[in-house]
């Protein structure tokens, strides 16, 4: 095995965060390459339907400060306020830039970028492109990559980071089409590998969302932050978990229980269907658990919006409902339930995307800056991929351009090769899909919308058992190994957080938020084959914690 190539900056992952980072690093003068296990335009960023939040003020008065306050409150005060303020300040400029590059946004009457209301936002702030916003952004970023002729190692599965002299110096990949390990050296490496929704059986995430980058960082000793914070989206389609966008509720759809009641009036009487996601997911789960569900679901009703509005503004949603649930929302309500959607947690970074390890950066859903704290607001994730992708790219380029050498010691490559050979040589034991399915089902059961101490403890043991069984498996999917480690971290952090905050809800033993003891981030590092828990303070600038009602 030889070093395939060396670059100044290598970006692992080519979704919105990865592509935006690569563009920025290139424009700063660095030699950049991207590594992606699927073609860039196939990244799951393309599935985002609803939109991207920036205080443009096109639909009503708005300003970055209000955006920041909504985000802080939405995060249940766990978000770092400095990071949030940066996001909200830079967001409008970053969105205009996307528009100048050609993003096909929907328009207002006077020809500006259209914006619509989204959950827990003080103003209609979500800029959108019909119901294909993520797709439109992925396309425009890929267009800009093509224009710059950036090198993409397409269908390369990044598996292991190269660390030498306490610096990250590259990545070892498995070439999915041609086979074989390939090493790519780099002065700085940016992880932008997206989320880990595949930990759960019902998820809005793609098959590719297996948290690889988080696990790779963990394996080289870097801390993961707030891993217990997995957001459940309130409207995922039964049975597959395909997302029905919050845009439907933005357009005026209702949520009903089996009695035809708009049950949110008992949980969020003011905001109703536009309350924060964690609030709605818990309300739904309570309705379902108390027997007011419809075959394990609640109903999303948009019949009153009328055929024309549905066809014009929610065309894609209708297509999804018809294909995956056999239901035409013009005539029938859609069965929905909470499903794993977004990981607020991720690789611990500062506001430039820097991790604890020199030369290693992270951005997008794989990272935890943290702007979302314990609960993310709809439309803020895409914005984070763009703004923090840009910032990570800028810093990684600057560092790379002021440092000269890249060293990939042969021993690192030899070790990787040996380990992979051993894995491939094993033939006895269980098929990975059984373990994968068992992990996903039990995570949903024991680490879902509501969390109980005994269940979390049991889940910890279960994962340990699965990891043992997995050791004996022919590796079809290195991904499964990543998922198992992440699940371990989540359970450890979840048990340690003895309170209810945002997505982490413990109604049975710790139903209240506890700012005295837990207004802080969890950190998990991997030490000697086991997780090690640590804490980190929340950065606060302007806003003191208050009770959170909608």
């Amino acid at each position, binding site marked *: 095995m030889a070093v395939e190539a060396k670059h100044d900056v290598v970006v692992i992952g080519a979704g919105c965060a990865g592509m935006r980072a690569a563009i920025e690093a290139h424009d700063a003068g660095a030699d950049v390459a991207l590594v992606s296990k699927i*073609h860039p335009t196939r990244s*799951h960023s393309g599935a985002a339907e609803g939109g991207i939040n920036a205080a443009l003020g096109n639909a009503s008065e708005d300003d970055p400060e209000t955006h920041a306050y909504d985000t802080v409150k939405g995060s249940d005060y766990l978000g770092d306020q400095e990071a949030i303020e940066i996001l909200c300040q830079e967001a409008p400029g970053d969105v*205009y830039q996307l*528009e*100048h590059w050609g993003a*096909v946004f929907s328009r207002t009457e006077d020809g500006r970028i259209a914006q619509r209301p989204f959950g827990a936002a003080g103003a209609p702030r979500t800029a959108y492109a019909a119901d294909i916003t993520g797709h439109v952004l992925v396309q425009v970023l890929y*267009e800009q990559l*093509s224009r710059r002729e950036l090198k993409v190692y397409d269908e390369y599965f990044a598996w292991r980071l190269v660390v030498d002299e306490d610096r990250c110096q590259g990545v070892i990949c498995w070439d999915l*089409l041609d086979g074989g390990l390939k090493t790519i050296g780099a002065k700085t490496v940016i992880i932008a590998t997206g989320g880990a929704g595949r930990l759960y059986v019902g998820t809005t995430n793609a098959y590719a969302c297996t948290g690889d980058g988080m696990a790779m960082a963990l394996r080289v000793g870097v801390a993961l932050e707030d891993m217990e914070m997995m957001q459940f989206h309130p409207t995922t389609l039964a049975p597959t978990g395909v997302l029905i966008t919050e845009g439907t509720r933005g357009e005026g759809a209702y949520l009903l229980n089996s009695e035809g009641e708009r049950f949110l009036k008992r949980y969020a009487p003011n905001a109703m269907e536009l309350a924060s996601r964690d609030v709605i997911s818990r309300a739904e789960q309570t309705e379902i658990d108390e027997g007011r569900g419809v075959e394990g679901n609640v109903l999303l009703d948009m019949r009153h919006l009328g055929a024309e509005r549905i066809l014009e503004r929610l065309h894609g949603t209708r297509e999804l409902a018809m294909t995956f649930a056999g239901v035409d929302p013009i005539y029938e309500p859609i069965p929905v339930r909470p499903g794993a959607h977004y990981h607020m947690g991720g690789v611990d970074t500062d506001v430039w995307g820097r991790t604890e390890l020199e030369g290693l950066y992270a951005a997008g859903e794989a990272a935890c800056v943290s702007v979302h704290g314990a609960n993310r607001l709809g439309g803020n994730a895409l914005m984070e991929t763009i703004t923090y992708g840009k910032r990570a790219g800028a810093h990684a380029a600057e560092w790379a351009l002021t440092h000269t050498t890249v060293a990939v010691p042969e021993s690192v490559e030899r070790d990787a090769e040996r380990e992979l050979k051993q894995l491939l040589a094993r033939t006895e034991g269980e098929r990975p899909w059984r373990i994968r399915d068992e992990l996903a089902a039990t995570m949903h059961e024991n680490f879902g919308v509501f969390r109980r101490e005994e269940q979390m403890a049991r889940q910890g043991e279960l994962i340990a058992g699965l990891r043992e069984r997995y050791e004996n498996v022919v590796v079809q999917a290195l991904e499964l190994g990543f998922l198992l480690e992440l699940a371990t971290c989540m359970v450890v952090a979840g048990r340690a957080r003895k309170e209810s905050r945002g997505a982490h809800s413990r109604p049975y033993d710790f139903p209240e938020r506890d700012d005295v003891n837990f207004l802080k981030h969890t950190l998990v590092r991997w030490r000697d084959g086991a997780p090690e828990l640590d804490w980190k303070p929340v950065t606060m600038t302007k806003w003191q914690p208050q009770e959170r009602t909608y």
Partner: protein
Amino acid sequence: MSEAILYTDSPTMDVRLKIWRFDSTTGDRELKEYEVEAPEWATLLDVLDIIKDRVDGSLAYRKSCRMMICGSCGMRMDGGAVLACKTRMADIVASGRVPTISAMGNLPIVKDLVVDMTPFWSKFRAIGPWLRPGYDRPDDGKEYRISQERMNVIHKESLCINCGCCVSECNAMESDPEFLGPQALAKGMRFVGDPRDAGTVERLEDYNDSHGIWDCTRCYYCNERCPKGVDPRDAIAKLGAESIKHGIDRDMGAKHAKWFVKSAMTTGWLREAELVPKTQGIVSAIKQTGFALELARHGKVPPPFPPHVAERVKEARLLYDLVKEQGRDGALGIVQGEHALARIEFLEEHGARLNAPEIQPGVEPPHAEG
């Protein structure tokens, strides 16, 4: 355990499939039959997953989003391209059909259902797939001001997910692998129709070259097979309309289209017999006379002399002037027409009619294609 977890307890069905297995390193090809139990809601992609997990781990195909947006899972079912994740199996199973699955066409196969997309992406790059700046940015540094109506012109084109289903079925690409093809040209239209793009004329010049828009055979397979409603053939028609609008008519195809308009305007008919000399010049016209006479004999074209003027030619002229006057020639006109038709179609389907055009009983409206 709360109810919401039970994702796997739905009723199942027995699914039978044949898959063309292929190994490019050995060149081995084999049609294999599989039978598996799958939940009733399963798509073709779910069935392939079950086969890969439980029957044969070596089966190769691409997937990611499983929600028709990433464009990974294009493949052929019974000879036509589909997205595996968009294809529900229940009806097929109920009909008793045992479908044959194979890799997409017009692209080299790597293994089983995985094709080499390199030719696809090089066509994509060939059309210059990025917005060409040139116009001044708005003074306030904010967004360009563009009406939704103008953006609608490229709405369908911007739905493209690069899945390759259209390319798989393209007739023209089969005979001319150099042909830019439906996806790349639809992407081209996405920029030509964008008022922010400063490269319209250069683009149209490029797309008018050989292997460009006029090489399309108009088989419409791309429209039929596109899973996202991009309708690439319509995009190509829009590029044609824009080319002529911008005076780029050196290609025979453009001359041909232009003559249609002239003919409709002067006579209200398409004087197809004159079309050949007007577009190809007199020498080749003589070569084609046999063909034209043949057509005339079969009543396909009205005899050339004397020019036969349709009764309602005035209307055709008026319409033409109106379109010109309102700047609705080119792609905008096509899209507005489409919208109007879709609206009429939808309202008709739902029992209502709104602004439906008056059609005189017994009068056959002139029929044109191009």
